[in-house]
């Protein structure tokens, strides 16, 4: 078996993985990226609408800063997030977007003077200030107080991925394409790298590293209808889970995007609504203001997706042979705006639907979009239970998003997570205690185990078809672990998924090649995906409350008294048919923003006993430090500077100083 050594092994060649590799290289260590596909084909490219960073350049962003971004994000996540991590993120996002600007991302820029925009269905004239000429522009997104989303037309992820991908080339980062990690090598709580398979030849290779980073993105393919790319199968999550040592946080927190094209599930950006697009029903009626008078189409995604489904259940959807859908109307934005700022949307409508969104409405219905859950780590991105294993981006749960991610916070997280966790990994590599110390016998044992598993699949006389099992799993997940959940349906889902997992142990292949073999890949991946699906369903069944994207019809209230805690799923015994669930409490007494109403959605949460006391403490601290400015008040409420790498602690400049 070939063995490759490096300092930092990165699994996943999207924005997060590439940015980590660049950070580690710049600190003088080797980094090597494994990717299922050429790095620039990663799903990061699919992010359309933009990246949140509180630059406050446009007039509708005036007054924006880290504080507001922090509060929007915590509220968006329905108080499930780690507030220190949110602070680290909101603080670093402006640096990340400015770094990308210097690396070549062609961000859309501010044009001074008057411009016409659509806000709440009405034409409004905005006057951009001359002082902001040529600085990065921001657009509106859901769940945000200010316009904060920096964008490149609606090809933001593409432009970012190409700039970072090319930057990685410039810095000599090797990317091993078409290589799939099969298992983490570990013993005694220490991770040593992975056993991987070259997809074109089937060769098994060991990659041995001081630090291993999982940056594999989301697990959308657990569901039948998803905006995610076909490679988003949650394999990174599963790698961690199958160690039996690492844990997954909040896997039941699954985001559904309001505007996926019906029925194929292709994404049309939230920027459509941010720029003034409206949701309409079968009668052409704009229904969101009826449900959400405060934020209308621009409440957080979990709220909008639920309201859409609710409206369909009331019989207001348009009927087709594939089911019902609603309409996204961007015709009011005008052709010029669409062709400049929503051109990918226009192309997708043109090619897949044969319609022109400048004159026709787009059929939409919510579809799975984002995996808030992930490999549970501390604020440095390292697993708390498996030393040397790191995770960042969508694959991680450090926990930035809580139970619902705001639009524009995911691509921001990819690069911010990459910058920060990359530094922490470099720190890790520099500690002598983290030198590689492994036995070759261990590497051989793991390599042999994976080879044996593949040989067994190829030799199997099993009667189950991997693709059929996967489709059944996706149907169970979409039908019973979707936007609206009940204890009864979730219990059925768990039972059915367990049966599918059992059956997956009896998969047989029609095509027996040891080399490139898509059916073989489907077989071993499906087994892993079923375990992940069980983590989602079991976590959702156990959580008898509603929080963010996790909505229980039988427990419709957010219950801070009992459920202000993070689910930790692990799989200690490979042959088990259920994950082990554990819980980690969130500490209200140290929160900068104690739980309350989000500013949209339901208002009837059950309070945590410490909330009131903590709120008075925070209010007192804010009053006491009021004359010292918001940085001092913030630091008194919840310090976080010490958690940041020294190089990223500087304050962010803005055209208007919104600080003290």
């Amino acid at each position, binding site marked *: 078996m070939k063995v490759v050594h490096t300092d930092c092994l990165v699994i996943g060649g999207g924005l997060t993985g590439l940015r980590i590799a660049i950070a580690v290289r710049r600190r003088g260590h080797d980094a090597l990226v494994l990717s299922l596909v*050429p790095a620039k084909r990663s799903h990061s490219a699919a992010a359309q609408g933009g990246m949140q960073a509180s630059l406050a350049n446009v007039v509708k962003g005036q007054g924006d800063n880290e504080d507001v971004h922090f509060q929007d994000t915590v509220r968006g996540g329905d108080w499930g997030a780690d507030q220190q991590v949110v602070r680290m993120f909101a603080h670093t996002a402006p640096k990340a977007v*400015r770094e990308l600007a210097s690396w*070549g991302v062609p961000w859309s820029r501010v044009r001074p003077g008057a411009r016409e925009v659509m806000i709440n269905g009405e034409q409004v004239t905005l006057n951009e200030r001359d002082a902001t000429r040529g*600085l990065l522009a921001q657009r509106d997104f859901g769940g945000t107080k200010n316009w904060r989303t920096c964008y490149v037309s609606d090809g933001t992820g*593409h432009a970012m991925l190409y700039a970072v991908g090319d930057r990685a080339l410039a810095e000599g980062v090797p990317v091993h394409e078409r290589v799939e990690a099969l298992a983490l090598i570990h013993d005694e709580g220490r991770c040593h790298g992975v056993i991987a398979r070259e997809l074109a030849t089937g060769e098994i290779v060991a990659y041995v590293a001081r630090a291993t980073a999982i940056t594999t993105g989301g697990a959308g393919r657990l569901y039948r209808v998803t905006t995610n790319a076909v490679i988003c199968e949650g394999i990174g999550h599963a790698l961690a889970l199958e160690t039996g040592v690492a844990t997954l946080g909040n896997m039941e927190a699954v985001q559904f995007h309001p505007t996926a094209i019906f029925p*194929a599930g292709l994404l049309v950006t939230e920027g459509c609504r941010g720029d003034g697009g409206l949701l309409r029903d079968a009668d052409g009626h704009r229904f969101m203001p009826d449900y959400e008078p405060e934020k209308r189409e621009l409440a957080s995604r979990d709220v909008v997706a639920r309201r859409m489904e609710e409206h369909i259940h009331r019989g207001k959807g348009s009927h087709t042979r594939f089911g019902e859908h609603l309409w996204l109307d961007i015709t009011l934005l005008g052709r010029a705006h669409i062709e400049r700022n929503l051109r990918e949307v226009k192309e997708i409508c043109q090619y897949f639907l044969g319609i022109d969104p400048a004159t026709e409405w787009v059929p939409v219905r919510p579809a799975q979009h984002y995996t808030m859950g992930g490999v549970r780590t501390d604020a440095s991105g390292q697993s708390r239970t498996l030393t040397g294993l790191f995770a960042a981006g969508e694959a991680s749960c450090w926990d930035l998003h809580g139970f619902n991610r705001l639009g524009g916070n995911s691509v921001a997280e990819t690069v911010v997570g990459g910058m920060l966790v990359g530094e922490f990994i470099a720190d890790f590599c520099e500690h002598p205690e983290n030198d590689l110390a492994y036995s070759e016998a261990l590497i051989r044992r793991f390599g042999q185990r994976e080879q044996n598993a593949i040989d067994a699949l190829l030799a199997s006389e099993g009667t189950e078809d991997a693709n059929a099992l996967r489709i059944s799993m996706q149907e169970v997940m979409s039908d019973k672990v979707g936007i609206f959940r009940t204890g009864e349906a979730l219990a059925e889902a768990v039972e059915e998924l367990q049966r599918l997992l059992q059956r997956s142990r009896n998969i047989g292949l029609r*095509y027996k090649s040891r080399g490139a073999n*898509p059916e073989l890949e489907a077989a071993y991946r499906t087994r892993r995906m079923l375990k992940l699906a069980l983590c989602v369903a079991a976590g959702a069944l156990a959580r008898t409350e509603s929080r963010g994207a996790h909505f229980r019809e039988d427990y419709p209230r957010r219950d801070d008294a009992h459920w202000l805690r993070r689910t930790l799923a692990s799989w200690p015994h490979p042959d088990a048919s259920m994950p082990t669930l554990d819980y980690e409490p969130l500490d209200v007494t140290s929160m900068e923003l104690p739980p309350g109403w989000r500013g949209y959605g339901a208002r009837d949460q059950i309070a945590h006993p410490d909330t009131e006391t903590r709120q008075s403490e925070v209010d007192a601290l804010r009053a006491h430090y009021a004359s010292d400015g918001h940085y001092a008040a913030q630091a008194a409420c919840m310090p976080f500077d010490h958690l940041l790498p020294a190089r990223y602690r500087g304050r962010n400049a803005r055209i208007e100083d919104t600080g003290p």
Partner: protein
Amino acid sequence: MSGNPDPRQLSISVLRYHPQAPEDPPRLQTYEVEEAEGMTLYLALTEIREIQDASLQFDFVCRAGICGSCAMLIDGRPGLACRTLTATLSPRITLAPLPVFELIADLSVNTGKWMRAMSERLGTWVHYREEADLDTLEARMDPDLAEHIYELDRCIECGCCVAACGTARMRDDFVGAVGVNKIARFRLDPRDARDDGDFYELVGDDNGIFGCMSLLACDDVCPKNLPLRTQLAFIRRRLARQGWR
């Protein structure tokens, strides 16, 4: 979206060859598929692999026309399979891998390797003068210029332009329209310190801009409608001027 009571039967012929199994010569294999409403080549090929032939190789990632993985010859013409609706084709469809690129198997070709080599050769990144200070305001840029750069930055490196190129079939080291477009993109970018002298060194020869025979199939087939014809003419004129100096 009304149902079609009498769906078409599609005959999809795929040019098959696995370089790892050279004992099986290249051959056309035909699959029969019942057309469904809204069916794309992605959906048709996935169905073939899941039901009829587990050995069939192809590449899809985003299945939304943005990642550039699935370019192939569709009835002889390079295009993105994921966003090609079967309804736009005749019921007898022929699929073949893109030429020029290294064949992995069947419809899967190694565009990633080709593009990476091109990028390394041309230095397709901003050669900035100094590291930016991330705590200060970003450098300003004219909004129109930013849009102009994005127009060229929309390339998804799918390889259609290279597969359609006459010169690329004759010269292994030709940079293709994709490469010339990258030069145009970085030449336009004020953040990049390189000048026409530097770009001339990179593509001022027959493997670069002067190898282009102006057949312009690249411009015809580009799935992103990049202004390749304009960029080829513009860079040729600029670098010819540079060459005369």
